[in-house]
């Protein structure tokens, strides 16, 4: 769908993107992650053709990115904005016509979306009369009204209350079901694991990680397990199968976090434990994207 190849973007005194390459599969929900200032917005602006890269190329459906692709991309910037004094119905039509829709088509789809998000009564209101959450809905409609193949959402949930955030999330998933590829740019990791198929992690202008969420998390598995058992006493075990990383004593049960030794199997560990105590539950601890993110970013510093 979108192939970013060796992009370099140099600003006065600092390099915003340094040899960044990303592959975004068709129909995926792709998370573009990174701390503030990592270069996410710079990359998004290049994909949107707001700015041009100094080096490297972007390919959209195997074609070199050009102005005919503008109508196929929908962009919700992090900093939202609408004309304050303009009726929102007119405004949505204007923005969709700028994306290449005819007036009739724009009107039809705007009506459809206004009904869908239950804001049809606001058609003649001005933006300054709306609450922030309402404005976000309007902005979202303006982003997707031209049925883009690629939807780029920069921090889409900021400013939404939980109810509206859910509505928008479902709309995003529906768009994705219908075949749209979605790029999510965020530094809030919890939403990423839930929605994204693949991610790329940017830090200090460089890509430091890319892949499917599952693969990445699996590759960061460290054979760590968390086991709950019923005992009033902490376990004192020295075995060849595992080392104890952490023990937590609670009222009704204890928690132990172990890491398997090289070559050992979880069943070996369980064997030791079962002979000493009553095991209530066992879970593998797979690092969250958040933890991987923090580890990666800190590791570089």
């Amino acid at each position, binding site marked *: 769908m979108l192939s970013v190849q060796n992009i370099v973007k140099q600003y*006065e005194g600092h390099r915003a993107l340094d040899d960044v390459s990303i592959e975004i599969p068709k129909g995926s929900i792709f998370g573009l992650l990174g701390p503030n200032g990592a270069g996410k917005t710079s990359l998004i*602006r290049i994909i*949107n*053709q*707001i*700015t*041009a890269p*100094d080096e490297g190329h972007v390919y959209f459906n195997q074609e070199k990115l050009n102005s005919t692709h*503008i109508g196929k*991309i929908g*962009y919700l*910037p992090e*900093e*939202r*904005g*609408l*004309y*304050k*004094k*303009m009726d929102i119905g007119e405004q949505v039509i*204007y*923005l969709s*016509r*700028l*994306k290449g829709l005819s007036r009739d088509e724009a009107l039809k789809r705007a009506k459809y979306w206004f009904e869908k998000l239950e804001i049809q009564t606001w058609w003649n209101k001005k933006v300054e009369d709306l609450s922030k959450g309402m404005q976000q809905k309007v*902005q979202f409609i*303006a*982003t997707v009204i031209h049925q883009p193949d690629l939807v780029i959402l920069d921090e889409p949930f900021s400013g939404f209350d939980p109810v509206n955030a859910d509505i928008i999330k479902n709309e995003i998933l529906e768009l994705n079901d219908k075949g749209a590829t979605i790029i999510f740019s965020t530094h809030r990791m919890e939403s990423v694991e839930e929605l994204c198929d693949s991610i790329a992690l940017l830090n200090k202008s460089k890509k430091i990680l890319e892949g499917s969420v599952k693969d990445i998390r699996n590759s960061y598995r460290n054979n760590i397990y968390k086991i709950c058992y019923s005992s009033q006493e902490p376990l004192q075990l020295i075995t060849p199968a595992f080392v104890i990383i952490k023990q937590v004593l609670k009222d009704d049960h204890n928690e132990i976090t172990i890491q398997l030794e090289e070559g050992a199997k979880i069943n070996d560990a369980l064997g030791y434990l079962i002979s000493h105590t009553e095991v209530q539950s066992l879970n593998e601890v797979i690092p969250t994207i958040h933890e991987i993110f923090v580890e990666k970013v800190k590791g570089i510093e």
Partner: protein
Amino acid sequence: MNKILLIIQREYLSRVKKKSFIVMTFVVPLLFIGMYAIIGYMFYKKDELTDIQKVLVIDDSKDFINKFKNTPALEFRYSQQPSEAARGEFERSTDDYLLLIPKDKKNLQLLSQKKPGISVIGDIETQVNEIARTRQLVAAGIDTSVLNAKQAQLRLNTRQITEKGEEDASSWLAYGIGFVGAFLIYMSLFIYGVQVMRGVIEEKTNRIIEVIISSVKPFQLMLGKIVGVGLVGLTQFLLWIVLCLTIAGFAGTYFSKDLHLKDQSKEQIIAKGIQNDSPVDEGAAIITALDSIPLGYTIGTFLFYFLFGFLLYSSIFAAVGSAVDSETETQQFMLPITMPLIFTFIISINFVINSPDSPLAFWLSIIPFTSPIAMMIRIPFGVPVWELILSMVLLVGGFLLITLIAARIYRVGILMYGKKASYRELIKWFSYKE
């Protein structure tokens, strides 16, 4: 291209639909007419509006006794007392001025309770000189009554020799039209230029800019905005011109009807032997003089200079708007824009209008930054065709060049937030690649 039209449409309609536009269109001409009516009324009735000033005359030479003429503003009274005593009387009295004329008629003194007005001094001086001159003439044996009877009020009737023969060279009307044209351009460059700048700042602070330039190129947006606002200005001017011509048309028929009536009344006036320059007379003169100015040509050049002057200045305004985060930060960039405008306007109404063919006038009307105003002053006086074409070509060229420079700053500026823009910064932005 289609997208530029969309932007122009939005910028145009969003402004024309505003109440303030409609109000401006109808109220401003009324305000102007009202203002001139008040000034005219005050000028016409100025004698009634001013207090009568009392002048006490002490004439030791006795030549001036009872010779001063009372005017609507001045009332003369004479005293036979010696000057010292008169002075005491004057200080106690309600008289405003004390005119002391010594025996040798040198060192005349005007004493006053307050600071004397210039017109009062002028009036008294004129009367003193006239009386003294009449005395001299009489002393030389000339009959002043004969002299006065022969004295004619002469007026220069100016006619310009052109290819078509002689034409009325009504300089005063050219003066007026030039002034009004230059003033309108000067004002509108400010008003509409600042509107462009506000529009840019609004888009930037609203952050809608990023949505829009993911659909169109920054240059398209800038051009669309400038042209849209420019069309608003043109619409306003066209409406004003139509309004004024309609009013002038009505006034014209009114005056020409009046002309007929007046012929009869004039006979009566002449019969009474009173000289009277009625205001109706002047009104009719304005209408005939207006015919001598090529209206289409003047309006056409006015619209051209407004449009391109506006395009030139508003692209600079747009670049300034893109460089700042709020209107309060525009101060440091406004001065270099407003300086040439103010400078040209002041020079134009003071010098160019008095000598429209001087080298200074020529250069000011050729340089793109100053030509919209300076040329408007010169147009009604007649400008050689080659100068006009040169000026127009340079203005269009200047507009293209400035727009290219402004667009390069604009495209970087609109995406820069929270960065204090300086001139050095702007130069850097200009040299950025895409």
